[in-house]
């Protein structure tokens, strides 16, 4: 695992140094001293990331066959991955739907979907909480904290 991590860090650092920093960080042409340039700090961090990645690979190779921390195993890794994928979809849907549906209704749907995803044994309680929690939070943030909670284009709350 440590070797994978190290390789990932090296690839990330190379991407930063060779592509991301030159293309996505702009610097004025009249910078007199390199250490004052907006490019300097990202390059230093990129270089250090590559060095740490290298050290991770080297120490990881010495420790192959033992010493790496182990994650807690689960009974159904395949289904676990499916649930993770569903969670990613749920988050994306929440983000994209919120401006149109409003935060309250989106939260209600997200609550129900997540409770279903984690296989709740209390569906009735989950359903009630899915309605009550977003409404209570709406009341607090909209009417106490004066936050303009997105209402969406369908149903508007007072």
């Amino acid at each position, binding site marked *: 695992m440590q070797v994978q*991590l190290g390789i990932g860090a090296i690839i990330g650092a190379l991407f930063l140094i060779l592509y991301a920093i030159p293309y996505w960080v*702009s*610097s004025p042409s009249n910078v007199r*001293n390199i250490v004052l340039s907006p490019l300097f700090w990202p390059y230093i961090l990129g270089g250090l990331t590559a060095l740490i990645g290298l050290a991770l690979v080297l120490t990881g190779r010495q420790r192959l066959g033992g010493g790496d921390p182990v994650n807690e195993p689960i009974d159904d890794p395949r289904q676990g991955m499916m649930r993770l994928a569903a*969670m990613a979809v749920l988050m994306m849907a929440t983000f994209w739907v919120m401006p149109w549906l409003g*935060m309250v209704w989106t939260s209600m749907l997200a609550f129900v979907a*997540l409770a279903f*995803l984690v296989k709740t044994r209390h569906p009735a309680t989950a359903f009630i909480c899915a309605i009550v929690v977003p409404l209570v939070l709406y009341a607090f943030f909209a009417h106490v904290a*004066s936050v303009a909670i997105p209402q969406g284009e369908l149903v508007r709350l007072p």
Partner: protein
Amino acid sequence: MSLIDSVMAGLALVGNWEAFLSLAIGVVIGVVGGAIPGISATMAVALALPFTFPMQPINGILLLLGVYKGGIFGGSIPAILIKTPGTPASSATILDGHPMAERGEAGRALGMALWASCTADFVSNLALIFFAGFLASFALSFGPPEFFALILFSLTIIAGVSGESLLRGALSALLGLLLATIGLDLVYGTNRFTFGDPNLMGGLNFIAVLIGLFAIPEVINMVWHPTGHMGKVQKLGSKWVTFAEYKRCFRSIIRGSFIGVFLGSIPGIGAAPAAFLSYSEARRKSPNKANFGKGEIEGVAASEAGNNGVAGATLIPLLALGVPGDVITAIIIGAFMVHGLQPGPMMFVLNVDIIYGLFIGLILSSGILFVVGGLAIRGFRPVADIPKRILMPMVLVLCIYGVFAVNNNIFDVGVMFVMGWVGFVMSRYHIPAAPFLIAFILGPLLEDNFRQSMLMSGGSPDILLRGPITWFFWTLTVIAIVAITRGTMRAAQSEG
């Protein structure tokens, strides 16, 4: 302003029901949050943060400090009753607390945990009051090179001791520093990784990043392993801790409190090492050392004193230097910023009323913790029975509202989701999240102080070693790197 004037100004701020109630509510939230495995004190503080936005700054910060202190104690309740630490700092409490619970003495163990926690918390608060002002007045003479060396030292310690290896901690800190470069350049105002998106020009929202890193991964973990939290709750039993037992353990409690204060005041070390060190010292010195690990009440007292001794002391670097001592104080620094306050030496000059108000509130918090903790011990069963698979969807919804409320921006919700996945992947690869967050906060300060130093010296790096203070921090940094590397190599050799 004289000391009396400062105390009076502080009293004027917190001598009202709102402040007292904020603190008490904070302690209740913290104890309950800490007592629920998977919520943790860190997540409780992060989730409570958005609710402080409409409050007066002092009340909001007191509420968060209450959550912090309550959360650290609350973590001991599931540690003793279900052998699952509510916070990482409570891991040492399991060693003797759970065997006591299995013997039907959970009430006694929890009672001692509460007494030790409150005593250590009080000692820690006194240490904060005595040392923070002194340190702040010393730090007033710091310039950019001194701050650069101090922040670098803090990041080194945080990266070195937060996780299982220095390299993973360093990688985490570097990722945090890289993320902090997003936005407009501090000096020239040019774009850095903004992709032309105005949402990114001000940098990533700190609260979205922290909630994403510390709350969302718990939700994702629950999705990955929905039944991983199941545990059997032990009964409290009829035995309760006595004053004679408290007296017998008092030396260990005071020793543990001072260990907590010492380790807590060094940025980055945190409560868990303090708890384990206090526990091992108590075992070494105790006449009952043979009983440690089998249900010795002194073991519970020592570990709880160690982890609660940290709670006030972590505020010393936060208030005096503006450097968060651990993840929770890193979140609390966010509350200061949201309310337009900048912790650091200048706060002791410009906002002395808030400083003294906080001191008074913290002293009160030890008493409130004693009352709330006592009630929480008896009322734990309903808390333990809250179905976690209902709780996590609630956490998700709370996060969405809380993060949106900071800037009224849905983009921040997206940042939080992305950071949630980053946090989840980091936890799978055993990369500690604490250095990431603290580096993200300190990153702009580190770079700013570096560039100011370079501007002052015309680009000469000699300025970074300009006086005894910078030399002191550079020496500490080198010592820390050598010590952590040697420790890691020794551990690897003993494993091999």
